[in-house]
């Protein structure tokens, strides 16, 4: 990867100017001249990738999740792995001092920074349902993304729209890939995503200097390639027909399968049943509540969280998200009708209409780009 020094040189900055920059940096930090060569050395040899973490319409659960990471620890990620230069939730600077950092990154790190987006832009009311810094968030997102190396769409808000985009989506909250069409967008869905998965995606990118292998929907295959049901420790109870029939019944106390209580594990692609949550302590099913499918597109509009899933595609563990995706889209009749029919998925078709890309043509190009390495 290009170091900060190389980037500056490429932009026509002389060595003399570079050293002057180091000197100014030292001065602005209240450090003596002895620090200048050390700062210069660091910038010449081992830069950390600058990350701009933007917040649109969101609830900050993704940031909260990120700081829960046990490996790497959030402090090590922030101090040693990336350079989290802009994140309104934790940054020291505010107002003009904060916005000056954005301007500097866009100008001096062109093409070298990662934009991590938490939340999404609303498009109604000229974007003024969210206007940090006095301008519509969608404009800020576009401005900052124009010179980004890649984008990470943290969580279900940035990836799919999530709760504010649930019907009737009053603000027209729109996922990132429908607004930023000319950059790779790595979707890391979930409400929020698993802490260690978030940390793993970003460390993968800085360690291997490429974006992870993505599935057709733009999610890293390594964490979103299998359904929760496939790897659920309660799966043997499903296969044996042992179900929780009612909250706190004998089956609940024995840890039986939560399928009849509405568990969405059979249709949800995520790593909860393997990586688990908060340093592996538990995950929703282990703690007695069904999966609500929070990493799936439009999961808010697929009926009640307690409605039984009526379409479990007949695939084994080896089926990946892409194949299942084709199956669901292609043959609606592939549903298992063995269980009592509930209208859990009748809104699926509507959901797809709601989340059409703004421009299907450019979006398709975007999809191709997603599959390239940066």
């Amino acid at each position, binding site marked *: 990867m290009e170091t900060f020094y190389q980037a500056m040189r490429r932009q026509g900055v002389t060595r003399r100017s570079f050293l002057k920059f180091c000197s100014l940096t030292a001065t602005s930090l209240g450090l003596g001249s002895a620090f200048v060569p050390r700062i210069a050395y660091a*910038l010449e040899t081992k830069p950390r990738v600058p990350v701009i973490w933007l917040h649109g319409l969101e*609830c900050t659960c993704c940031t909260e999740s990120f700081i829960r990471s046990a490996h790497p620890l959030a402090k090590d990620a922030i101090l040693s792995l990336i350079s989290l230069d802009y994140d309104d939730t934790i940054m020291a600077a505010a107002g003009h001092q904060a916005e000056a950092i954005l301007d500097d990154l866009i100008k001096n790190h062109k093409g070298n920074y990662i934009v991590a987006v938490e939340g999404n832009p609303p498009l109604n009311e000229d974007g003024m349902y969210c*206007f940090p810094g006095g301008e519509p968030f969608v404009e800020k997102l576009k401005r900052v993304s124009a010179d980004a190396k890649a984008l990470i769409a943290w969580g279900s808000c940035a990836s799919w729209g999530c709760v504010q985009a649930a019907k009737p989506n009053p603000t027209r909250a729109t996922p990132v890939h429908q607004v930023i069409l000319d950059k790779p967008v790595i979707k890391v869905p979930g409400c*929020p995503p698993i802490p260690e998965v978030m940390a793993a995606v970003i460390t993968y990118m800085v360690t291997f200097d490429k974006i992870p292998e993505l599935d057709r929907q733009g999610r890293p295959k390594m964490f979103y390639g299998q359904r929760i049901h496939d790897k659920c420790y309660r799966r043997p109870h499903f296969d044996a027909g042992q179900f929780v029939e009612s*909250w706190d019944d004998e089956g609940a106390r024995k840890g039986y399968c939560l399928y009849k209580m509405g568990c969405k594990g059979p249709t949800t692609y995520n790593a909860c049943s393997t990586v688990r949550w*908060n340093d592996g302590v538990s995950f929703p099913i282990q703690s007695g509540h069904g999966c609500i499918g929070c990493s799936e597109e439009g999961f808010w509009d697929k009926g009640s969280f307690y409605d039984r899933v009526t379409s479990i595609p007949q695939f084994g563990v080896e089926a990946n998200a892409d194949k299942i995706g084709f199956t669901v889209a292609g043959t609606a009749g592939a549903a298992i009708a063995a269980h009592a029919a509930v209208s859990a998925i009748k809104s699926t078709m509507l959901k797809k209409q709601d989340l059409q890309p703004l421009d299907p043509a450019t979006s398709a190009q975007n999809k191709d780009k997603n599959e390239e390495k940066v």
Partner: protein
Amino acid sequence: MSYQTQGFTLDNSGRRVVVDPVTRIEGHLRCEVNIDSNNIITNAVSTGTMWRGLEVILKGRDPRDAWAFVERICGVCTGTHALTSVRAVEDALKIKIPENANLIRNIMQAALYVHDHLVHFYHLHALDWVDVVSALKADPKKTSELAQSISDWPMSSPGYFRDLQSRLKRFVESGQLGPFRNGYWGHPAMKLPPEANLMAVAHYLEALDFQKEIVKIHTIFGGKNPHPNWLVGGMPCAINIDDVGAVGAINMERLNLVSQIIDRTITFCEQVYIPDVIAIGGFYKDWAAIGGGLASQSVMSYGDFPDHANDYSESSLLLPRGAIINGKFNEIHPIDLYAPDEIQEFVTHSWYSYGDDSKGLHPFDGITAPKFELGANHKGTKTRIEQLDESAKYSWIKSPRWKGHAMEVGPLARYLIGYHQNKPEFKEPVDKLLHALGAPKEALFSTLGRTAARALESSWAANKMRYFFDRLITNIKNGDTATANVEKWDPASWPAAAKGVGFTEAPRGALGHWLKIADTRIDSYQCVVPTTWNAGPRDAKGQIGAYEASLMGTKMAVPDQPLEILRTLHSFDPCLACSTHVIGEDGGELVSVKVR
């Protein structure tokens, strides 16, 4: 132009200073102030700059699902909206929850308190007081002496601080300061000596490591954090201590993990958080006379932590309940969340329309349609706002009032009410803290008072986790393992129409959800949220809210570096996603409302 309200004189004739974004908060907040020739704030304008419209999204949904939607109002105070929601549904449908469910909910709510307060102090608020770069100049040995003089916390050796300082040095020398870039280092209002700064930086990092441990309590009972799972009628986590299959339920191993985290949390609060607040506060005693705002006039708490399941009366609630107005602390008024003339929301200066914008509406009768328009005196354009016009509509937050009064809510409000109810568990720690700082009782009405009350409350909540945990064990020992009541799980058992109110004290203050159910579906859903109380704009009478009031009269050392504004706003722990999601029951027509 100038006018008087609530004892403040608002004058917007001086230089205007704009802070946007206000960082180190949840969500998006803008603040504009006017300062006079002495750099003293004479007018303050608080603006919520986001709106999501969750309540309109809830209309027509299954009330049993509502907790999951409203939980996503906020991922910082995660769980507290969900708890409020299941209480509202249970109130509407008259569902009684088992004692164990109440205890587990209380443990989870208390875990949230400690986590939220700790992260607020160390990761959102501390950089207002702590100069990270100054820590490089500290003597590690003297830092160790300082740390050991205020606490028994073991991570305090000279070597520990030396190692930390070298890591910090390497970090600064990299020239990539990350989140510490462009901070207010060397600002004249920064008063800590280098050793105190180094100690605080160490605890910033330790607290970052430790906060992820506290939330494991949510993970055990709720499956994950942020956004654990809840259940109308109880809790979804079944208890199985003796039988086959216990490994798939709350068992002895799970309970031991909870117990161990509780012990560690109590220790961290007592040995790190509170000593740090006293030590840092000691260098900023001037802030015990700055930022009081409404705290000395009008404060309110709904109360929370029911000692007995299903009893939400004042006598059952462990956190105090009541309202104080006009500075009369010897008179604590009861609160009725159903009374149409008590809690009302105004939109005179909010980007919504009631038709008649001079009236206030009770949440059960709330009507809201967004109406985004800028006043004639704004500067900039509609999509590039340089300066707002506070004489017109200027925020996505509504203005709630209690019997017409603007109220401050939050930890300080709770402690002021508990203190004046002469409850020892609130009064004694406050008196001890005031003694340690050598400050009078009036020092509580301040930026520092707010920050200190939050620290005391963390310790209170950590100890309450132990209290509720021990009661849970006693119940299990007595053979009671019930966690859910499913008598009314089936919507067929519900009345055709029902309405209910759920309330909690969220970490940031009084939180209420007002719910109407019709034909087993949500007919209307209204949330009135702590940051709405504190951050809301002016009302029809021009009365200012807690944020605006708290900034009045503050002197800024360097107006272009708004450190003083950040200190006071942060002392409320702003949560903007919470405050700005509100929409009324006729929100179904929202999409057809023509706004311009």
